[in-house]
């Protein structure tokens, strides 16, 4: 009976498999596996030093992340033209995160384990950062994350070169309060950044006597905003705080405009609309609306003139530059400064050298805050103009010290 024999064979194989699996067991949780926390192996053998670029080149996030990749490449080319880092040319290894969080984790693993890069630059969404974070921590490697985010995070393996909440959201609220805004409507996409941002906004509002008259979330990618526009209109707030992301902004502003709401009657302050997005939404619907960032293409600094000129020379004269691109560009230079300060590519050395490193970035001079691994950044409130640019109308003046857990704000107690 071949069949009976077949099953016996099959069960033998399975039993062997189980045995193999169990015999392969390694460390239990809590045990230290040998020599303490892992340190990434970095390939420093050649006359080049490899770094990883991890951005979505396909999928829904490609629109934004491709521009970040371009800015990263620009910085790397400039540094290489200038002699490289510690005498080595930077060799960028690009990976496509494909707008898919597990793919990000997979590619991060590949860059660290297989390519043995010195650092990785990239990620955009918080979800992708959260997905790769354990990979970087496990392997003891470094990530430079260039996008404003929701704070409440401080990994020793990540440098955050975008704004945390007290450098973008809190100043925006300060500005609105200065303008006499006493009631707010919150509209956001349904994911971690808007939800966390709105918790912070609510806590701020409660402490400062601002009324939150409504709070709505739309699923990412949602394009039907008739009802939300109705609700915003009916609520009659002084201003709208907008944390929508991507395509939803297009529908939201078209509907907002159609509902007869304007920047004069009820301004919208957005924290996820930069120069690139303005083009896709249409200036017709956006003129006069507000944004909160650390950098605009129009920001007045010598470094920015060079940056914009170099970027447009490389990628096209009609290409705008934006805050995340600037933060990405800056992040490569900061890493270079840290490495040169440390005289080594090793992660531990680089981290030890990080505190106080400065760079004359397009947004002005930025300084690394060693304890949180964030940057001191200046906040700028901008107004969207009819030609699609954003002009600065207010600034926090001094660079703001990063405070990802908002520990320096009394009203923020209990948020984290």
């Amino acid at each position, binding site marked *: 009976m*071949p*069949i009976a024999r*077949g099953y016996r*064979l*099959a069960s033998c*194989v*399975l039993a*062997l*498999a*189980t045995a*193999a*699996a*169990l015999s*392969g*067991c*390694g*460390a*239990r*949780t*809590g*045990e230290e*596996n040998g020599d303490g926390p*892992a340190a990434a192996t970095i390939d420093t053998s050649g006359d080049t030093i490899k770094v990883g670029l991890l951005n979505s*080149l*396909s999928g829904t996030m490609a629109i934004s992340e491709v521009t970040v990749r371009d800015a990263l490449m620009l910085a790397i080319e400039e540094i290489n033209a200038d002699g490289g880092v510690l005498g080595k040319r930077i060799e960028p290894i690009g*990976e*496509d995160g*494909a707008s*898919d*969080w*597990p793919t990000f*984790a*997979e*590619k991060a*693993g*590949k860059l660290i*384990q*297989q390519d043995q890069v010195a650092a990785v630059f990239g990620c955009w*969404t*918080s*979800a992708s950062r*959260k*997905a790769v*974070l*354990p*990979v970087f*921590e*496990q392997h003891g490697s470094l990530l430079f994350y260039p996008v404003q985010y929701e704070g*409440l*995070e401080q990994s020793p393996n990540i440098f955050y070169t975008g704004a945390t909440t007290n450098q973008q959201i809190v100043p925006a609220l300060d500005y609105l309060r200065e303008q006499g805004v006493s009631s707010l409507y919150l509209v956001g996409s*349904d*994911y*971690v950044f808007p*939800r*966390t941002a709105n*918790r912070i906004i609510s806590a701020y509002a409660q402490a400062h006597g601002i009324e939150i008259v409504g709070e709505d*979330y739309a*699923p*990412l990618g949602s394009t039907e905003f008739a009802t939300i526009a109705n609700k915003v209109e009916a609520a009659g707030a002084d201003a709208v705080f907008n944390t929508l992301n991507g395509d939803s902004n297009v529908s939201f502003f078209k509907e907002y405009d159609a509902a007869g709401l304007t920047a004069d009657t009820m301004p919208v302050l957005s924290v996820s609309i930069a120069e690139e997005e303005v083009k896709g939404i249409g200036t017709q619907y956006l003129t006069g609306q507000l944004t909160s960032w650390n950098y605009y293409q129009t920001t007045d600094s010598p470094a920015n003139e060079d940056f914009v000129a170099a970027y447009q020379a490389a990628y096209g004269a009609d290409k705008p530059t934006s805050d995340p691109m600037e933060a990405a560009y800056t992040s490569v230079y900061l890493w270079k400064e840290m490495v040169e300060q440390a005289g080594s590519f090793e992660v531990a050395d680089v981290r030890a050298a990080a505190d106080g490193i400065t760079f004359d970035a397009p947004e002005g001079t930025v300084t690394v805050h060693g304890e949180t691994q964030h940057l001191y950044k200046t906040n700028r409130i901008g107004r969207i103009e009819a030609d699609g640019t954003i002009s600065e109308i207010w600034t926090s003046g001094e660079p703001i010290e990063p405070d990802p857990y908002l520990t320096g704000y009394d009203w923020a107690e209990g948020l*984290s």
Partner: protein
Amino acid sequence: MTRSRLLPLAGFALTAVALFAVAPAVLSDFRLSLLARYLCFAIVAVGIALAWGRGGMLTLGQGLFFGLGGYAMAMHLKLADAGPDGLPDFMLLYGTGGELPWWWEPFRSPVFALAAVLVLPMTLAALIGFLVFRRRVRGAYFAILSQALAAAFALLLIGQQATTGGTNGLTNFQGFFGFALADPLNKRMVYFVIAAALLAVLLITRQLFHSRYGELLVAVRDSEERVRFLGYDPALVKLAAYTVSAGMAGLAGALFVPAVGIISPALIGIVPSIQFVIGAAIGGRASLAGAALGAIAVAWAQTTLSEEFPAAWTYFQAGLFIAVIAFLPGGLASLRHHLTRRRTRATRPRPPTGTPAAEGAPA
């Protein structure tokens, strides 16, 4: 007869050797963890081969069950990391209050979580199937409906950020039933568990394919009404296959969590659900080996080709998919039969393709 039975067995033994001896020996830790991920997709594909290839139910919503299994496992791992009475880290950050939601509580028990990995998706599939098949919703209606349900589940998860992690999903797991996931040796163990699971799933499905139930399932696929007139309730026949395939997707989702270290709504919605089907379709929807290998090959090609040529990869994948479905509905697995049919007057059934055999016979 002997040959036709020994051949698959030899194939099975060969697969076992390849998975347990060859792959761990030649692949780096990183590549092996990639393979572990592909094997999870292969498990889903085997379930799809059962439900779609044999049962004719185009399950465009397998992400729903994959997600249920994955979240059940991830919730347990999160709680285990947090320790007794602890809260998962993301709840401390984004949650409201310091309370664990009641529906998280049972997942502290490893036994409950392991059972839930299979029971949750299968129960839900049984419920959906009962409602849908009983009312004879089928074909495209069923496909669209199952897709919509997967989309709805993803939306629901995203909307409950405080208790499900929202878009971020659940990530950053330290241990797997007491074993540190950071240890490469344990990663290897996870790989072996997944490989064993795939082998077991292949065995079970092969038995189903060749049992009387498997024949009945094909009959239901080809003419549901006719089966009804023979005294069977086709709804129950389909329900069983659908439930089993959901269980496989759930198992795959659960194993995916320790292997890849994340489960998120991005693995559940419409696009991933269709991706699951693509692998099975290209490999061969009604062939076990075809579906499993197809899923692995497509995932592998995605990783390697999309790195180099993201745009070209889309064209290639879409083009291949269109060509296979339109001109080779049995998938690449049916190539073998197309080639050998002339030589051997096969007495075995041709791999069913879901299409009525239109060709007349030389009577």
